[in-house]
């Protein structure tokens, strides 16, 4: 029979929890979430403006040699 170990869930809004590690963990998680949101916002906006027929456009983009 496998041992089951109960993982301790970090307390919500846990200021009282020892040495602020839980709070630090939450801050990091929040920061990670914020970064993910920002990245999502970036990708969403790129999606809106990115050339739709990328393959054809890139294929047809030909220049004469310059200096």
């Amino acid at each position, binding site marked *: 029979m496998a041992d089951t170990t109960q993982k301790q869930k970090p307390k919500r809004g846990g200021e009282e929890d020892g040495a602020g590690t839980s709070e630090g963990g939450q801050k990091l998680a929040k920061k990670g979430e914020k970064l993910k949101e920002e990245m999502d916002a970036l990708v969403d906006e790129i999606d809106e*403006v990115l050339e739709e027929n990328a393959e054809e456009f*890139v294929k047809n983009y030909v220049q004469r040699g310059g200096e």
Partner: protein
Amino acid sequence: MAIPKVMGTEIEYGITVRNDRDFDPIASCVLLVNSYREEHAGKILWDYDQENPLADARGFQVDGEKYTPNQQENIARNKTLVNGARYYVDHAHPEYSCPEVTNVRDLVLHEKAGEVVIEISRREATALLPPGAQLLIYKNNSDRKGNSYGSHENYLMDRRTSFKQIVEHLMSFLVTRQVYCGAGKVGSENRAHPCDYQITQRADFFETEVALDTMVKRPIINTRDEPHADREKYRRLHVIVGDSNMSEYTIFLRNGATSLMLEMIEDGAIRKDLSLRDPVRSIKEVSHDATCRKEITLENGRKLTAVQIQREFLEMALAYTSGRSIDPITKEVLARWQHVVECLERDPMELSREIDWVIKKAMIESFMERKGLDWESPQVQMLDLQYHDTRPDKGLYHMLVRQGRIERVVTDEEIAAAVHEPPEDTRAYFRGQCLKRYPGEVFGVNWDSISFGIGDEPIKRVLMGEPLKGSKAHVEQLLESSPTAADLVKNLRA
């Protein structure tokens, strides 16, 4: 003795027309350039007479035919603007040469003003095309099909500094500065080793060390010797190896660090020998390594990374400037150069707000991750191109600026002003003011002269061989007391 680094950049843009597969690039360029209207607009020639593109700085004249368009073609292809810039058709590309500036901050302003001029003309020209067709312009250097077009920098130098000295000390600087100047590119070209993403647009196209040509077998150091100034005193160093940059910070540092290097060369302040064994090979090795850890081989056998070599140049620059009073802009150049080298030593991706190739890479990687794409995806290639799109609402660099993701150096208001106002401290001021004040009487223009057609009299050419003469301080009073071109010529003779 180092002389003031008067400088300017000339940039060829990529051009295409959507929904018109048979578009002719030259005709489109002519349409584009002529769609930019300024009040003074007269029929002004670009004065090719004194140009000498076949003179080689190594001391000889190459045989060949200098191309000079006939008068009608000339007027159709060349515009000189009231801000002192030249806007013209170069082969099959629109090109903008900004007016001469004395400092790197003005350089950023005027290069960026060029993008505004390009975009205004693009909109105007598109309105004249058949319905559904759209003119599109890109500030980049490569079409992924083996063709490249350039962003050239020009620096005024003391002619007493030998070309040999310049080559000796500048070569390894130019090969390695790409770590903070590169515009980034997906893939490789011109028979170079395949790679997913590289630091520069142009490295793959450089095939020799030192040469005169700018279009085939491109050299890292170009020997064109056409000073457009007093030939006894000056040299114009024509640097063709750089990328077209979108980021103001990158442009600032590119010209700032390079002009500081040139001052050090003029003053004999380069104390270390950092010559490379094989610059043509190294420029690609550095470009193809986005981790910036690749070691390249020096002539003396040592192996250093491009960042380590730049660190050496930075330390030399700090030593050179310590103990002398330096202007605020040079201080800013040093601070930014230092910041960038420190970040590169830790992790190049820390510069995702400042340096073009990093900004672009971070953007592409975010997109790839979210969408599960790889480096061969057409959308990734499209991102590479669209970063350089001049349209404020579609260009991805412009989008990133709007999102507050880019470190800026100048403001939009200042850029807007530079579209109509020349720099006040070079001969560009005189040129721009003459165009503003005497429309219809200016017959021809070149960088170092301006000619007037006054009534039936023979054309009067005013020589401007000193880049710093013709500034506001020098000529404002002269201009104020010369309501007509005839008065100007008379007053100049007095």
